[in-house]
């Protein structure tokens, strides 16, 4: 009885499902609908404009055919691969890219209608200008830098391409070969930022190779250079000590300039006051790049004036250190507070100076700046649009905010190659000038250590 019931209800359902499956036609997508078989008239080429690695072809379609769907330009590249570029009929030019060399290239142009009918081929033969990758390789300049090498190239048409860096590797004992290091790959996409440092390498003569490739699969020959990077060490932050000869203080707020900023005995500007013990200048040399480290206030003139309009912020903030070693700096990196509200704004440092002196200067604590050496003055970058920061801009600011001591210096009176033991940082501007204080998380330094104490 129960079996009968199952048969009565489930059998029809199963049979109907089987029928459904059996009758299903395999669906192959919408086919090309043919409404005619006449081939459209061929494309008429009006002008060919050579560009860097490309040809811009201006053309006209024949009147009287509303069914033309697209224009296709094709050529075979030097690797024997077919390259194809398409535009709709609502365009009167097509850009054929990915060309290399300056020899004549033959491009085939056809138009295709909505039924898939192809016109006769129109042949265009013209020579492009030198391609971006070839131009970059021809103009590439490689020179030693502190801790590595500096690579410069030209990208006048701001085309995107990749510079692959090859370094020496010993795959077989005694045989040194150049092998690509993917972590050092350089990406170029604009005509301005066309230099990069490749680090970190020992100061011994070694080979470097460079190959440039683009999105069309073009790959240049390898440029090989043998270079000796300048010696560079990371300055050990654990040896650096903040010193109190210029009266640094701890006070959670702005202080009056006349009362606190100047040492009345020496006439020298005092170091600034930190917000608290956890925010003193020593914190920029503790290896901690996140969180909230140095937090130092600017002095304010007429701070006690009841009218805020009469108060004047003095932007210079000083902090002084004994490095416990003689160093010649090559570059420094600033790690700011990483929260987005500090990125290119608020209390992050925009302009600063490095002063240095050594033990030979017996008046170093009684005469500043006349007995000290200005090592350099440096200015931070501005983003293109603060309201819409790009990931690259944020990454640069938080992770790669680097200042080359010699090349990044903007003060002609500075002597960036001088060595020193004692360092006085002069913070000069915050990204937002209205901010009453400065913040830095870490001040990383690189250079040559001459003596340790």
């Amino acid at each position: 009885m129960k079996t009968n019931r199952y048969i009565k209800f489930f059998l029809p359902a199963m049979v109907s499902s089987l029928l459904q499956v059996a009758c299903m036609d395999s669906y192959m997508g919408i086919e090309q609908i043919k409404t005619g078989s006449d081939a459209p008239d061929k494309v008429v080429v009006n002008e060919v404009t050579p560009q860097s690695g490309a040809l811009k072809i201006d053309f006209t379609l024949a009147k009287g055919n509303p069914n033309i769907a697209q224009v296709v330009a094709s050529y075979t590249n030097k690797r024997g691969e077919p390259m194809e570029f398409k535009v709709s009929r609502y365009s009167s030019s097509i850009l054929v890219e990915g060309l290399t060399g300056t020899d004549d290239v033959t491009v085939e142009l056809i138009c295709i209608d909505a039924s898939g009918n192809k016109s006769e081929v129109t042949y265009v033969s013209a020579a492009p200008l030198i391609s971006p990758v070839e131009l970059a390789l021809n103009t590439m300049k490689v020179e030693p830098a502190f801790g590595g090498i500096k690579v410069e190239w030209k990208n006048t048409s701001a085309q995107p391409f990749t510079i692959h860096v090859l370094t020496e590797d010993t795959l077989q004992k005694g045989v040194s070969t150049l092998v690509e290091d993917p972590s050092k790959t350089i990406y170029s996409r604009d005509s301005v930022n066309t230099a990069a440092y490749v680090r970190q390498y020992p100061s011994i003569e070694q080979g470097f190779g460079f190959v440039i490739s683009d999105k069309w699969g073009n790959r240049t020959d390898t440029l090989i250079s043998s270079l000796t990077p300048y010696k560079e060490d990371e300055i050990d932050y654990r040896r650096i000590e903040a010193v109190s000869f210029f009266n640094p203080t701890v006070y959670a707020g702005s202080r009056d300039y006349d009362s606190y900023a100047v040492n009345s005995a020496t006439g020298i500007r005092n170091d600034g006051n930190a917000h608290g013990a956890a925010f003193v200048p020593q914190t920029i040399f503790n290896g901690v790049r996140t969180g909230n480290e140095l937090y130092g206030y600017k002095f304010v003139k007429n701070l006690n004036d009841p009218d805020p309009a009469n108060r004047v912020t003095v932007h210079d903030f000083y902090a002084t250190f004994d490095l416990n070693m003689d160093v010649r700096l090559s570059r420094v990196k600033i790690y700011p507070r990483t929260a987005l509200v500090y990125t290119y704004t608020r209390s992050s440092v925009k302009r600063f100076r490095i002063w240095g002196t050594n033990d030979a200067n017996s008046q170093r604590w009684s005469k500043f700046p006349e007995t000290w050496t200005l090592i350099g003055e440096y200015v931070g970058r501005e983003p293109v649009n603060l309201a819409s920061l790009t990931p690259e801009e944020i990454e640069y600011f938080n992770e790669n905010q680097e200042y080359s001591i010699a090349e990044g210096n903007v003060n002609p009176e500075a002597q960036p190659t001088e060595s020193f033991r004692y360092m006085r940082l002069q913070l000069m501007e915050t990204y937002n000038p209205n901010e009453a204080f400065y913040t830095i998380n870490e001040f990383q330094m690189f250079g040559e250590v001459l003596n340790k104490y």
Partner: protein
Amino acid sequence: MMSKYAYIATLLLAFLCISCEDANDLLDQHLKGGPIVYAGKINELDIQSGYYRLRVNIYPAEDVNRSHCVLSWNVTSGVRDSVVVQYMEENYDKDLECYYAIIPLGPIEGNLLMASQNVDAFGNRSLINSEGAFIYGPTYVSTLVNAPVNFSPDASEVTFENRIGAVGNLVSYEQNNGQFTEEVFVTDSYPLVNAKSGGIIRSKTRYLIAETDIDTLVTEAYLETVIPQTP
């Protein structure tokens, strides 16, 4: 019992019927004529404001079969008006490299949404491109004020305060013979000759609200300022 089986059998047949229908047959009914052909649309519509009129600059996309463009707008709710702009040489502005039309808009003033659609030689229409525009009229002009008049110490010259958008002033003043001078357009200062001390200087300010406007606007009423009496 039999009626139940009949019911099930009908249901099975219905399933059979539906499941065996070819989806392509359905699609072909709609696609047999080929894809819809659109005329090349208008890429950009640049509209310049005027007094009860507009100048519409038309930048069409490439289309060898292009015939004309239809510009349309709402006159009142639900009632539309339109003009046809032919793609001919006389409608082409070589400086701006575009086709254009100057459209008188009668009693319409204020904001207006202008729709544009291209039509090709085969009657195919393009996608529609709409752009907002502003038409000046008496309501707008009534909000404009005259620039105040300033006199030199000896009242021999007048100057006008700068107003945003003002391009100059229409000036006429009372002379010693009691007659008013002919109205002249003054962009900067203007000397008063034989001006009657204590007489009247009449002025109206002319505005060009936006640099791209095709009409200047003049304030409705004269500003009458007394010429100061000098010793």
